[in-house]
């Protein structure tokens, strides 16, 4: 686009971001501060993710953007159009064709490959944020790997609900060392992060933090020995493609209690239906 640098951000900003990314990849799960820029997008819509995408995307890349698993929601459409315009890159809705995937709230059902990068939009990068209000103290807790407090939260869940009832942003231990917020993806997606072949990058724009999980890194969901982690999903089959293993959205269809369950990953659902047809 005329008057703008490739992928909107100026080269100095991208260098700053890439330096932060290199540090983040070197210490998996560790939050690196960076100077987040004002983006033409409100906070909470993916300002962190969009900056990370802007600094890793190249002319030959193919971009896919998903929001809650869907390619056709406002957030996904605008970010995809943003990069089509400012970087002139090819975009796709097909997971297998994409080289860079920016996501909010989901990991695609199709396993990712070494040739792909997945960029997560993160609202709150600090997993200890609800337990310890002081950032100086949470940094100290990370530095000393003092994560007992996180288990207090899990204990409370079991004591109150009889199980660990965290359904999204389920805390994970990365590389056996750093406690990490996986961003608000459903706990169902947590196992996909474990030893994922693709590079995982996380950008939190408002909180000005970047972190990363390199390929083939251990990502383990916290749990108790007698209350192991369980990836929950609605006990239904997708009403469109019939999948009984994918993560489902509940869609209200009328005001008389009618509802249907459909795959939250629209590309996964469409691909399955194509195959049948």
């Amino acid at each position, binding site marked *: 686009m005329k008057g703008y640098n490739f992928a909107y951000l100026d080269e100095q900003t991208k260098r700053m971001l890439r330096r932060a990314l290199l540090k983040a990849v070197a210490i998996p799960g560790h939050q690196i501060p960076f100077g987040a820029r004002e983006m033409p997008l409100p906070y909470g819509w993916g300002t962190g993710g969009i900056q990370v995408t802007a600094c890793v995307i190249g002319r030959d890349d193919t971009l896919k953007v998903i929001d809650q698993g869907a390619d056709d929601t406002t957030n996904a459409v605008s970010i995809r159009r943003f990069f089509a315009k400012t970087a002139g890159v090819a975009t796709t809705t097909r997971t297998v064709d994409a080289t860079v995937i920016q996501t909010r709230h989901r990991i695609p059902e199709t396993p990712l490959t070494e040739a792909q990068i997945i960029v997560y939009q993160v609202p709150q990068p600090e997993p200890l944020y609800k337990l310890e209000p002081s950032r100086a103290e949470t940094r100290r807790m990370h530095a000393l790997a003092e994560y007992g*407090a996180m288990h207090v939260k899990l204990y409370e869940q079991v*004591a109150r609900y009889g199980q660990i009832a965290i359904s999204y942003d389920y805390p994970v231990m990365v590389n056996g060392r750093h406690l990490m917020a996986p961003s608000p993806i459903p706990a169902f997606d947590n196992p996909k992060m474990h030893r994922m072949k693709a590079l995982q990058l996380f950008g939190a724009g408002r909180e000005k933090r970047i972190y990363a999980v390199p390929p083939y890194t251990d990502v383990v969901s916290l749990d108790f020995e*007698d209350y192991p982690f369980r990836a929950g999903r609605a006990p239904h089959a997708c009403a469109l493609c019939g999948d009984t293993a994918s993560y489902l959205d509940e869609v209200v269809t009328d005001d008389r209690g009618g509802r249907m369950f459909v795959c939250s990953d629209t590309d996964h659902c469409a691909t399955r239906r194509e195959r049948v047809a």
Partner: protein
Amino acid sequence: MSGPLLSARALALRFGPITALDGVGADLWPGEVLAVVGESGSGKTTLLNVLAGRLRPDAGHVWYREPDGHVADVHAMPPPVLRRLHRSDWGFVQQDPRAALRMDVSAGGNVGERLMAAGARHYGHIREEAARWLEEVEIDVARMDDRPGTFSGGMLQRLQIARTLVTRPCLVFMDEPTGGLDVSVQARLLDLIRTLVRRLGIAVVLVTHDLAVARLMAGRIMVMQRGRVVEDGLADQVLDDPRHPYTQLLVSSVLAA
């Protein structure tokens, strides 16, 4: 391998023009209860914080004898080591339990926190241990999943004690543990603390302004005035036969009921 558990020499600390500690020394033997008494502003709490490694003195040393017999300088310990010590072998009981407890976490969670910090990852075991300790401090196990906000002042303080003792520390610092409680609750709490401390053989540094508490709890008493130790000896000796004029004043100013 014998010697004091905790030993301090020539501690000095000034806050600007105020002398909080001036050449203070102390020895605490395993299983012993040492009371530090004096009027407010005499440096009692400052001394406690310096002994516990929470506050760095301008001069002087605090040594701690670890269970393996190794003697370590508390203020030379790297922060992770000191923090680990505070979570396991040491305990700290504050005057205001609300400041020490997690008020948005159930009583059981509060007691279990130190276990989980020490690496316990079995919910059933943590819960059993927490229930056992709630019983120890005479809190109804049925209240285990209630938040501390629904507890009375005395129960809160007992909960704090359960939370502190759950890792079986060998040394506990107590800062006015009975302050702010009414007299009957105080008596019951003191009785409880005394029983637990005796039975578990915990060494305690107890800071109090209340001589009755000191007499009930302590084997030895240190009297402080303006940052200096003016008298130091066996509890009965200090209270029944005070030698220093300030101690005499303190003892004679206690109201007899």
